[in-house]
């Protein structure tokens, strides 16, 4: 009899302190990664403190580990935050749908992420970069409130090293430091300044609701079809498997039918998120 709430124990291989209150944790199960796809999520727990839902932040093509990023905010995340390399994390998953990479192949892609919402974007971005030749021009636009809030500093350098790949990093006005060399401005503003066109292109967006709202408008202005704009929704979840009744938006259970949706799909949902 399968206990669908039973976590596997994953071992912490590495912890990357991204910002003062965010971390990326690299995990292995039996010494390797698990099977999952970008866009999917898992239930990660500090045993004894509780479970939290996070999307995968790593490329599923990299087999040595899988990772997620989190911000310490409540009891469960504080628990995870207290763990060290070698400690175990409870893991259930992968759950939910994933990015349709088939649809993305051969096209130009712009990846847009804001704050900790960059995590799922990183997963699909690195997936695409791992098979760089399958895709057209890749543009990455990543924004954070301040320079201090920028995550994935090492990864960013790696993204930049790929051919035909533009990486644009921006911080909100007022969030820059004197030696900041990136852009300054809100993500939608910077986005509209980028040389990206909507034809034969896909946009992947994730971030805070307010950012997504304005980014969608900008993308439409830039000629993207709603079907070609893909985002992930981050509703509060507990079970992750369509039982606990928390994450639905209208008739859509985000945990099962999401979290990846096109702008077109979102448009048809009631405003309940």
């Amino acid at each position, binding site marked *: 009899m399968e206990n669908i709430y039973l976590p596997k124990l994953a071992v912490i291989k590495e912890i990357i302190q991204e910002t003062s209150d965010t971390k990326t944790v690299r995990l292995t199960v039996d010494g390797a990664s698990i099977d999952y796809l970008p866009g999917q999520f898992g239930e990660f727990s500090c045993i004894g403190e*509780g479970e939290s839902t996070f999307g995968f932040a790593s490329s599923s093509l990299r087999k040595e580990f899988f990772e997620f990023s989190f911000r310490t905010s*409540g*009891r469960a995340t504080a628990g995870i935050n207290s763990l060290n390399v070698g400690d175990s994390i409870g893991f259930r998953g992968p759950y939910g749908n994933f990015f349709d990479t088939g649809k993305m192949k051969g096209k130009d892609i712009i990846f847009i992420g804001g704050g900790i919402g960059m995590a799922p974007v990183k997963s699909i971005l690195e997936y695409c970069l791992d098979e760089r030749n399958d895709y057209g021009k890749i543009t990455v636009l990543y924004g954070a409130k301040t320079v201090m809030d920028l995550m994935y500093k090492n990864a960013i350098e790696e993204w930049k090293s790929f051919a035909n790949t533009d990486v644009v990093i921006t911080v909100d006005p007022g969030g820059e430091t004197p030696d900041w060399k990136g852009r300054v401005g809100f993500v939608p503003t910077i986005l509209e300044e980028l040389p990206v066109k909507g034809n034969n292109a896909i946009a992947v967006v994730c971030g805070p609701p307010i950012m997504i709202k304005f980014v969608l408008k900008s993308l439409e202005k830039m000629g993207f079809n709603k079907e070609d704009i893909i985002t992930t929704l981050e509703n509060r979840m507990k079970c992750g498997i369509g039982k606990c009744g928390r994450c639905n938006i209208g008739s859509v259970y985000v945990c099962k039918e999401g979290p990846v949706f096109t702008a077109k799909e979102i448009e048809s949902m009631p405003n309940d998120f």
Partner: protein
Amino acid sequence: MEKMNDKLQNTAKELLENKEVNLIIGFTKGSNPLRMRSVFITDPNDVSKLSFNAHCVQDLAVFLKKPEVKKFGKIGLVVKGCDEKAVNTLIQEYQLSRDNIKIIGVECRGAVKQNLADKGEDSVKQSTVYDKCLVCEVHTPLLYDYLVESDEPAFEINGDIKPYAKIEELDAMSVEDRNMFWQKEFEKCIKCYACRQACPLCYCTRCIVEKNTPQWIETNIEETGNAQWNMIRAYHLSGRCIGCGECERACPVNIPLMLVNEKMARDVFEKFGYKSGVDINAKPVFGTFDANDFNEFIK
């Protein structure tokens, strides 16, 4: 009742027409003839919905804590004397500005227990009203802007029924027996938090039970979590509870919460001479101290 309703309606109409309030919260007929429910009136033409009788069990002051209701700004509230004390306490605790509320006090002759009314009881007598009505000192509200007098005579109290009799009984029990009594009661709890939601003074937007850093109250809906919740609820209401009894009325599993609230109210009065909800300018009993306070239990 007719005269009462007329006055109620006229008062409400005037307040709305003169824009002295933007909303009137009062009672109206409910889902059956022996049930009343709250009604929210913004249009002076709707005041005919207002009425009052012995089935107006709800403490409408509870709505004053709702953000959706607060948005209306100035509010006219129909309250019975017992419930009005909640308004006083809300003012005392800075949850409500006296300027933002018009208190339409109604003289109340006692409210028929809802479980009896649901079985058809319609008469006000000492065996049908709540215990709080038997000890009521505020049939006429303490504070009001308008008073709607009752047309009904007061019911007779002959002492056959001792309100909150169980309190003395519990006091006389051994601690183990009390333990068992409450354990049995709290076992029933389903942690729906209706006691909290129905309480006009449980106005925290983030209840202590929702805080998990640290986890003040275990989340389980079993003996430990239930006991902790019920204990802490009672503790937070000690010296504050005004005895409207809404928690107990709302409780779907009939935990006698008023036995705790009333007991604490009595103890607080005995030890500190303080009664909650009486004076909007009083210092709340646990917001102050006296150097000569009760000290006997301390070595």
